[in-house]
Structures are given as structure tokens and as C-alpha cells.
């Protein structure tokens, strides 16, 4: 597949906009080439390449909207897709909450593209798998892993002069290494937009070391413990909380950010004052597109939690207008301030506690308190007097990230990662928290 350049997508979007007879028109063109290799049982199980390109046209007549798409780009096809979108809009009912598409605005480019990542080939992918397989075999371990790379582009344009084009690249790697007898398991995750920042050997070695150290886990009684959560262990918990940073839900009384009596908690100190979290599309470690593809609004650097206080919430265009606020593009990344210590240094400063490598299958139990349940996995260790003393069996937890971020002891050095189930690129530290609530034991290794 050809990755279309800016001039090519501008020509297509200009043509589409000139053909449209509706009151408003939005054009999105995106395409991606995604390669992957998956391995398990010390052998490659699948490997592949997927290519796809799409053109989407959304139009509005007054408050009636319609959307259509096509994957052909000749003039006849462009006209066809515009007419189809217009036909659908005419059939749709009016949406009283309809908001017009944004006026022309500038998008300041972010560094989301790396030539080296775009040049990844099947040999490179196979080599990533080969290293962890070979090292695992040498150590009488069994590796399972997944490496994927993606090169993509996106153009957004509308009938009010908005235009944005950017290319993106990224690699994601996860690897689970288990002992042959299934008594030990270790895991690692690495994400980067530039493959030059990814070291498959170093990553695999972490999973191998954790697998070897995790054999013969002892059972610890469920209860409240001081816990060091590695970044991958807390990322999904925090992502759940940020899904609820919607101003409308808070104002309407159906969010943890709602207050008795019908107000929201903007400005309230809900977290430990060490907690500072923001979004920034231009961050050098976790750059994301400088626009929100949903509504074509520019993203901005935005504090979400400042010194433990709720600093901002997300406003849709409709709710912003109703509440007299300004709508901006919704965050694509989550960045949390940390300290300078490595996870090992946090461990060294812990008298008694538990190290959690990874959390798993997190689900909302009570949205009122953002109570989440889930489990630890692939490397859970007991710490005593600054050292890992022995591996322990996995726990189920029932805990709220709001409570967790109130019980912070110390923050480590932030690391880049993507959540398993969240849309955010993240830069978050290891966190040592008090009184983390484990409610039962799991026999799973």
C-alpha cells in the first residue's frame, strides 16, 4: 500500500469538499500498514502484514447528519461517496444537540513519525522473536510474545478550512516467559514510536529474569499492603479513571467527579498533592496527533490533575457551549510526573511490601467510587528490608485508582507504555502506594 503524502490527501479532500452540496462536510482519509509476528511455545505461531486505506465523508444539512465511505479514489468514486453521505443525512432525524464542525484552525505538528520504524521488514520481526526464543531455550524456559509495527497516515479536513495531515509510526512488544514446568512466569512490555528506542534483547531479558525468580511462589494472606506498581501495572487502572473525566457526566451526577447537590469536583483536591497528570500531544516521549479525530478540534497541553486537584475535565462541543466553557481536542496521551528513582531504587527503599509487574482483567465494579477489580500476574514478589525476598502467589484486588493516588508513598522514573485496553499513550512512573487492597488469592501462575 502506498502511504499517501500531504499533497495527495489535500487534492482528494479538496475535490470531495468541492463536490459536496450539504451545509457542512468533514473528510477523513487514513491508511495503515501493520506488520506483526506472534510466537508461543518457543516457535513462531503467526506472522502477517495488513494494509488498508479509507476515505470517510460526513455531511450535515442543518442538524441532520450522514456518513459514508469508500476505498477507491478516482473522481467518479469521490462523487459517489459524497452523494451517498448526503442521501443518508437527508434520511436521518434531527439531533437537537448537533454542533457545527469547527472553524479553520492551525495544528502544530508533533513528532509521531520515524523512518526507521517505517522500514521494518519481516526479517526484523522474525529477529525480535528469535532473540527471546533462543535466550529462553538456553535457560530452559518457554517464550510467548508479540511484536507489531505500524506505519500510518491521517488527513482531516472540513468545509470551514480545517486541514491536517500527519504520519505516525509505532512498535509494541510484549513477551511472557514461563518455566517449562509452569511454576514461574515473567513478563515485559515495551512501546515506542521510534524503533531506535526499542531494545528487544534487554526487554526479553527482563521477562526471562522474572520467570526464573518467580518459581515456587508462597501464599500471603489477602489484605492491605504497601505495593510498588510498575508502570504497566497501574496504567489500565488510571485509564479507567480518565474515561470518567467527562464534564457532562460529572455535572449530571453520574460520575465520581459529581458532588452532592448537583455540582462537579473541578478544583477539588481528590488526590495526594504529589499527583500531577497532564496531556500534551507534543511530548517527545509519547507524541500523538495534534488534533482530536472525533471532532477536528486541536489538542492542547492540558493539566488533568495539578498538585492533587482536579484541574480540567473533557467538554464536548455541545456541553461546553451549554456551560459557557471552551471545547478543545480530547487528550490522546496521559503523562504523570514522577521522580528520578528506578523501580529497583524504590524497592531498595521499601521495608515491607509487594512488587507488582502487571495487572490483568480490570473491570469496573462501582462507578460511584471507580472501584475496580483485577489481578496481579507474571511476577509478583514480596519485598523485605529493601530486597525482593521471594515470589508470592497472585492476588485479586478491589481498589479505586482515586484511593490509590491518595495513598502515594513515592514515585519512580516515568516510562513509556500503551495500556492493554486504553486508547492512551502513557508516560507514567512506578508508584509505591500504601494500603492497596488485595481481597483474595489466585492459584494462577
Amino acid at each position: 500500500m502506498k502511504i499517501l503524502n500531504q499533497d495527495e490527501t489535500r487534492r482528494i479532500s479538496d475535490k470531495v469538499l468541492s463536490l459536496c452540496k450539504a451545509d457542512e462536510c468533514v473528510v477523513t482519509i487514513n491508511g495503515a500498514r501493520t506488520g506483526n509476528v506472534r510466537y508461543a511455545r518457543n516457535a513462531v505461531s503467526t506472522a502477517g502484514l495488513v494494509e488498508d486505506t479509507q476515505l470517510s465523508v460526513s455531511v450535515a444539512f442543518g442538524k441532520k447528519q450522514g456518513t459514508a465511505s469508500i476505498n477507491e479514489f478516482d473522481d467518479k468514486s469521490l462523487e459517489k461517496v459524497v452523494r451517498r453521505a448526503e442521501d443518508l443525512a437527508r434520511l436521518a432525524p434531527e439531533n437537537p444537540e448537533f454542533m457545527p464542525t469547527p472553524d479553520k484552525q492551525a495544528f502544530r505538528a508533533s513528532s509521531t513519525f520515524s523512518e526507521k520504524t517505517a522500514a521494518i521488514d519481516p526479517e526484523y520481526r522474525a529477529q525480535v522473536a528469535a532473540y527471546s526464543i533462543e535466550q529462553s531455550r538456553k535457560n530452559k524456559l518457554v517464550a510467548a510474545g508479540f511484536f507489531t509495527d505500524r506505519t500510518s497516515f491521517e488527513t482531516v479536513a472540513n468545509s470551514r478550512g480545517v486541514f491536517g495531515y500527519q504520519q505516525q509510526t509505532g512498535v509494541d512488544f510484549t513477551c511472557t516467559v514461563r518455566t517449562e514446568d509452569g511454576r514461574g512466569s515473567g513478563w515485559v512490555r515495551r512501546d515506542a514510536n521510534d524503533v531506535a528506542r526499542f531494545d528487544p534483547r534487554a526487554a526479553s531479558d527482563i521477562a526471562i529474569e522474572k520467570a526464573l525468580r518467580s518459581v515456587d511462589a508462597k501464599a500471603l494472606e489477602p489484605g492491605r499492603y504497601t505495593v510498588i506498581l510498575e508502570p504497566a501495572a497501574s496504567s489500565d487502572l488510571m485509564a479507567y479513571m480518565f474515561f470518567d473525566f467527562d464534564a457532562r457526566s460529572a455535572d449530571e451526577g453520574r460520575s465520581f467527579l459529581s458532588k452532592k447537590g448537583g455540582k462537579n469536583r473541578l478544583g477539588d483536591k481528590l488526590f495526594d498533592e504529589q499527583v500531577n497528570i497532564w496531556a500534551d500531544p507534543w511530548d517527545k516521549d509519547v507524541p500523538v496527533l495534534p488534533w482530536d479525530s472525533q471532532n477536528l478540534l486541536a489538542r492542547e497541553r492540558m493539566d488533568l490533575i495539578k498538585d492533587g486537584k482536579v484541574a480540567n475535565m473533557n467538554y464536548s462541543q455541545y456541553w461546553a457551549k451549554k456551560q459557557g466553557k471552551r471545547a478543545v481536542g480530547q487528550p490522546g496521551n496521559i503523562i504523570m510526573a514522577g521522580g528520578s528513582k528506578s523501580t529497583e531504587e524504590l524497592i531498595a527503599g521499601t521495608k515491607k511490601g509487594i512488587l507488582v509487574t502487571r495487572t490483568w482483567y480490570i473491570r469496573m465494579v462501582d462507578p460511584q467510587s471507580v472501584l475496580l477489580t483485577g489481578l496481579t500476574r507474571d511476577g509478583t514478589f514480596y519485598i523485605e528490608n529493601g530486597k525482593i525476598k521471594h515470589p508470592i502467589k497472585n492476588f485479586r484486588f478491589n481498589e479505586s485508582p482515586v484511593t490509590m493516588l491518595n495513598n502515594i508513598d513515592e514515585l519512580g522514573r516515568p516510562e513509556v507504555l500503551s495500556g492493554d485496553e486504553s486508547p492512551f499513550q502513557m508516560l507514567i512512573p512506578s508508584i509505591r502506594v500504601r494500603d492497596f487492597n488485595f481481597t483474595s488469592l489466585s492459584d494462577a501462575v
Partner: protein
Amino acid sequence: MERRTFLKVSAAAGGALLIPVFGEAIAEEQLINPMAVAFKKSLADAAMNAATKAGASYCDVRIGRYLNQFITTRDLNVENIVNTESSGVGVRVVANGAYGFVATNVMTLDAVADAARQAVAIAKANARLQSEPVRLAPVKGAGEVAWATPFTKDWRTVPVKEKAEMLIAANKAGMDAGASFMQSMLFQVNQQKYFASTDGSYIDQDFHRLWVPFTATAVDKASGKFRTRDGLSSPVSMGYEFLDAKPQHKIRAAGGVTTLYNGSYDLVEDARAAGRQAKEKLTAKSVEPGKYDLVLSPEHLFLTIHESVGHATELDRVLGYEANYAGTSFATLDKWESKKFQYGSKIVNFEADKNTPASLGCVGYDDEGVPAKRWDIIRDGVLVNYQATRDQAHIIGEKESHGCSFADSWSSVQFQRMPNVSLKAGRKKLAPDEMVKDVKKGIYILGRGSYSIDQQRYNFQFGGQLFYEIKDGKITQPLGDVAYQANTQDFWNACTAMCDERDWRMGGSFFDGKGQPSQVSAVSHGSSTTRFNGINVINTARKID
């Protein structure tokens, strides 16, 4: 694992939407006309010829056209109506004993032939890392055949306005009955899948599915408390006739606490009940933690079955192919080989069935061209079989695949996915009201709530939508803040009673996630109302201020 799979979908200017759906939007009239079978066959032949010439020992080609329509509403407003389409070709090969896969949305003879050659190159690049060559169980070529989901009313022909009005009527009913807010959605799916392989199969299939989820939210602004009640319907493989509610499909829950549905669904009636029940949940008694006998309704129990039996008996998990993501399984080969691993009590019988009418996993053929079938997984409480694909069958001594291969898109590689896995109804005549009579201290749980299980399927925690206290054989009052925790084997061995086939019905999920890259699959699980004795219940109420 049931995952939340969210993809952002372009919307004209209607604000941000997060909608779980694949593909891009298309116009209404384009939905009805399928691709010509002859064209699909020519593409498939081009790919298979190119793959064979490049050195593949096996090749299969999947040509897919995936159509969805979804309508989202909030209170009395329609937020969006979107038609989506995704189409393209996926080519899988075996070369030098290894798999290779390439997918492209360019549907020309040259493009698919090139994809096939690239797939062979990928297979060869990875062959050096194989510990043993791929071994496919034999499949008899089906020739040129077709299969389609039976339905009487095509969702594609029902006017959008009529569907939107139905959702708005449901939202109004919920709000009139006590909900502060209502959100409802209508998912409609049509998957046109063409499969061809060098075994001599050319299989054209047409699937139709439907789901109408909603959430009623009640808010007490004075106390700052809010509670929700989700719909009690299940997604189905049916046409739009599912929404023409028939009186004979309405089921009175034990104690008459609510109405349940099987065969068709009265959305407006359920939304009305949800509005009332969401409000009731604001003042429900907070549960006292401890051991209870649980009476679990099928539209709740399906998810417990899915997680603790469905996923645990997937052979790829057992073998370690999912170790890096979805996990492995406690149901290891040695337990199966022993022929005496007591997975559950003696009344527990599970079967896998790809033929159950209206079930989400109902197909004519799987994505390796294997005809749909039925088999036992747990018999009289003992683990007797797994779920397998062509490359796994020999491991468990089977001569042919179970037909469990599935891919969620033309652009995804097919792999092992669970069939419908269902708990058979009790052999003795028993109705839910009679079951409750035997419970001294228990909780009756209805509807799906939160759910989580560990990566080997031992430790789980489940919530629900509605909870009722059972005291001395009677349902007494609604409860709140309920979740139960158990170990899978302990739980199924605590199964003491199940209602008979009159009460048997299915729940299901559109978005069962697994694999890397992650894919979703639609699957159903049936049961009748079932009792489990002495299960640990926790109280989930917390304060954050």
C-alpha cells in the same frame, strides 16, 4: 476474556463518540447488494495459484464484506446513525511448514496474488524458528456451497426512522418510570464471508446478528448517589423479527421480580422496568458479606460459563499459545487424560454446539472450511474434551477439527475461538420458583454485571444487574453492592441444582476478545436457572471522599 473493544468512528460534528464497531461508513442502498460469487471465486483462485507457485503447500483465502449499522440514542435524542463497511481479502498459507498471512483491501487479481506471494515469503522467513511443522487435520473439500443465518425480517430493509423511534420510545419509558438518564444502542451486523482453500472448498456464508443494549441511570442529587440497570436482553443471530415481541417469549422471573425474554424481546417493556429498578437500587439494602447459596439466572450465568468453562477449555490456551496475552488454563492435558478430573458436580454437563439456532456462534462452516458440529466438553462433571482447530486436532487424538477457527475480519488471521458452550438443563423437573423454595440464605442474581477472572481461569469475581435476598425459601428484598468470588473448580462442584429445559435460554456477547493482535468474536452460552451452594459474597460499596 470479554474485552472492551473501542474504535473511534468518524462523526460529522456531533461530538465525541466511542463506539465498538469495525469498519467505515457506507450508504444505505449499498448494504443489500452482495459481491458476485463468481468474482470472489476468481480472486480466491488467483491467490491460491500464486501461493502454490511460490511454494505454499496449503493456502486458504477469505474474502469478507462486513456491514454494520448502529444507532445511538441518549434520552430523547438520536445521537448518531452510521452505516459501516469493511471489505478485503486475507490470504493464509503454509510454506516450509510455517504459517504466513497477508491481508489487503485492494480487491484485484494482481493485488491478491501479490498478497499470496508475500504471505509465502513471510512463512519462509519464520520457518527457521519452527520447532515442528504445521500439521493440518484433513478436511474434505466442500465444493461450491452456501449457508446463511435463518431470518424472516432483514434489518437492512427496516427504515432507520422506525428503529430510531423504537429506541427513543424505550428511553422515554425508562425515564417515565424513574430513570434520570437513558442511553440505548442498536447494533446490526451482516457478515458476508467467502472461504476458499486448496482442499477444494468454495464456501459462501451470510451471517446476521442483532443487539440492543441500554443503560438506565438513576441519580439522587441530594445524596450524590447514582445507580444503573442495563437491559436484560441478549444479542442474537436473528433478523429484525427479534424485536417483534411475542407474549409467549416473556418469562416471569422467580418471585415475579421482573420479566425476562427468550426468542423475542420487548425493548420498551424492559426499559420501563429498568427505569423503575434503577431507582429502587438507590435504596437497596447493602449486602452483608458472607457465604450464600446463589440462584443464578441464565442471562447472568452465561458470562460465568464463558469465562470459567468456555475459555478454560480452549486448546490453544491449554497448550500455551495464548500465554502472552489471554493466558493459559488450569484445565491441562493431564487432567483431561486422567478421565476423572471433576470439573464440576455430577449434574454438570457442558456441550459445545456450533448449530444452536439463534446463537451467536451458529455457522455453517468455520474459517477453515470445517462443517459446524456438536460435542461434549464436560460429562457428569468430568472434563472429557476441548475445543480445537485443524492444526490442534492431532494433539488430543482427534481425526478431524472441531471447527473452532474464526477471524473477526478479512484483515485478521483465523485462530481458535470458542463455539457456543452451554450448560445442559437439569434432568429433573424444576422451575425457578421451586428452586428458591429450597434456599435458606441466598441471593438471586439476574443480568450481567462486572466480571473478571485470572489468566489460568481459577479465581473469578462477578457482579450482576439485579440482586434479591432469599430468606427461608422466599425472595424478600432487593440487595445492593453484591459481587461473588470463587475458584472455578470449587464453584462448579458447588452446583447443586438446575432448572429443566423449560427454563433453558442463552445469553451472549458480541465482543469476546482474544489473540494478538486482539480480535473479537460473538458467542452465546445457554443454561437454565442454576443453584450454587456456599459461595463467597463480598460487599463492593466504597467511599472515596
